[in-house]
């Protein structure tokens, strides 16, 4: 059994904790959160050893694996503390807010031979895996455009008092929603070489972005678009979709299905006929040993446990892979791609279309 601890017991953290506890290879020896009202109830009902001090938990229970599901701004120091004590790490997405931190942590994990993973669970969704397989096969011909979209009903009115509405804590649609879509771009179409036309705006929020749009550039000539908006009530829950256009067809994937249109049969997919081929989640999903909210959440934890058992250091969503997504985020914020950072525009101060036209202001 792998002695495992968890820090951060918010929505994702509690869900992770349930999955960790249900896993036959993992023994949860400690759980930590600053909200004492929560850890008290948890300790009483689940019998878990609970802590409010992360360092104390690490030193007292000496876990060999740590799952970190705290607000994004705490990731870097908490990951470092775990690695320094020789623990394997699973960190929620986004990995870190500063690429330099990420590079340091990748090197640290590498030199200590520790297994790492970041919670980009969409890479464990059957339909997206199928999309990646098809795009990589080359069956679409020369890929010339990719579009990644994520919409959902998270911020629907002004206000909001959680860390997600604080810029320094890694809140906002860019870190919370867009990074999933960006990771899918990296996974399915490959990492873009540049970013331009960035728009990050508040719809209701005043300190962070609620919508993020940008254009991707690939050195081979292909382009792409990112469309992210978490202030869209017409969606029941987060909806993420990626579309890839190539000279031999088009592919669209979301959590439920993978739709492929091929213009002509391709030797890389000899069994796939020209025209539409649609595969559904019921068909693409690998069963898991325990289900909560979606197979992908269990599958990623199972993969982490297996990586630890096998000392697989370069597995799916390892720190090195997630750092690529942080680099893409940095291109969008202008801190990593030599682009000028674009300020968040607040609804109250947004100039009229006319004034913007007159002023030639593209922001």
């Amino acid at each position: 059994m792998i002695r495992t601890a968890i820090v951060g017991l918010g929505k994702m953290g509690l869900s992770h904790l349930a999955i960790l506890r249900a896993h036959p290879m993992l023994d949860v020896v400690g759980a930590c959160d600053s909200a004492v009202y929560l850890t008290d109830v948890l300790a009483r009902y689940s019998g878990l050893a609970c802590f409010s001090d992360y360092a104390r938990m690490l030193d007292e229970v000496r876990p060999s694996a740590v799952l970190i599901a705290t607000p994004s701004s705490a990731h870097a120091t908490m990951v470092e503390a775990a690695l320094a004590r020789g623990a394997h790490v699973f960190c929620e997405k986004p990995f870190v807010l500063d690429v330099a931190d990420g590079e340091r942590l990748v090197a640290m994990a590498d030199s200590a031979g520790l297994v790492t993973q970041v919670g980009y669970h969409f890479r464990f969704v059957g339909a997206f895996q199928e999309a990646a397989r098809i795009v990589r096969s080359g069956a679409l011909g020369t890929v010339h455009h990719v579009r990644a979209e994520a919409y959902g009903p998270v911020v629907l009115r002004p206000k909001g008092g959680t860390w997600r509405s604080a810029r320094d804590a890694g809140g906002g649609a860019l870190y919370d929603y867009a990074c999933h879509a960006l990771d899918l771009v990296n996974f399915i179409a490959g990492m873009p070489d540049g970013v331009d036309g960035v728009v990050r705006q508040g719809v209701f929020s005043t300190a962070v972005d609620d919508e993020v749009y940008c254009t991707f550039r690939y050195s081979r000539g292909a382009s792409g678009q990112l469309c992210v908006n978490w202030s869209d009530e017409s969606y029941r829950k987060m909806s993420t979709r990626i579309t890839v256009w190539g000279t031999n067809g088009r592919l669209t994937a979301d959590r439920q299905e993978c739709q492929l249109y091929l213009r002509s049969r391709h030797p890389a997919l000899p069994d796939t006929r020209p025209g539409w081929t649609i595969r559904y989640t019921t068909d693409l999903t690998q069963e898991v040993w325990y289900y909560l909210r979606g197979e992908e959440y269990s599958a990623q934890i199972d993969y982490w446990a297996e990586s630890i058992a096998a000392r697989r250091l370069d597995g799916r969503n390892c720190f090195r892979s997630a750092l690529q997504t942080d680099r893409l985020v940095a291109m969008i914020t202008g801190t990593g791609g030599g682009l000028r950072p674009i300020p968040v525009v607040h609804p109250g101060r947004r100039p009229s279309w006319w004034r913007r036209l007159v002023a030639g202001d593209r922001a």
Partner: protein
Amino acid sequence: MNVALDRVLFGDNQFFGVNHMSEDKARAQSMKFQDLAAIIEVLDLAYRSGIRTFMCTTHDRIAEVCEHFRAKADRYPDYQFFPCMPYAHKYANAVTEHGMLDALRMFLPSEGALGAILRGGVALASRDAETIIRLLVDAEMKMFQGLRTPVIFLQNVVTDLVLGLGANACFGIFADHVRGRYAAEPGFITMNVPRLLDALEAAGIDNPIVCANINKIGFRMCGGRELYEQVLAARRFRPIAMSVLASGAIPPREAIAYVRQFDRIESIVFGASSAANIRQTKSLIDELYA
């Protein structure tokens, strides 16, 4: 207490844009059912086919459905609801937007001792946690006032979260409250039947009503189809089969014939939005169970 379950129960996923196969289909359905009249029309179709139990999430819009059934009670003399709580996205979105404690405050009555505890943000005694569970159940049950609710379910996202956390006592708190306050039988929706049965047994809940995916292709049957089949043969519980057609992945006759072979399965819940599908599925079940 041993509530009799109807053979066929009507589900509500189709009304709220839930479709396990396609987001486009889900959206088309939520457009189709944005007016209450469209939902009632389908429930009426199902009722005329002999389906008198509506198993529904405690979605805000169900309150409108309840209002209709209260107002026209004489039209549906034997109608009953199986509420399934909570509608999780309502809570999940609130937690994302407001944080856990503020979200909890939003869904609970603000007056009284509990309000003071929550405002203080201090440690909750276990008695308080039990009070919170009861108050959350009561908040979800408000919309069903005056209607028959002989079985009250815990949704799978909560059942399976509690199961994973190992907080089995919470199942007992829910069951006791549902029995005591609503004279109803507790039900549990899950994707993890074998594991849940052990936990419910540990919580002292005998012969529980458990609603789970049971289908020929093993879709979302954690532990695997074979283990489910063993459990269906050997364990003492009252299974209700859902996702029998696996969102359309299995032809109806084949799908229902698979479920039919397990005598222990008391009911099948299905959702459909066209008259033809409702009639076809209902008559297939009637035929195979005749």
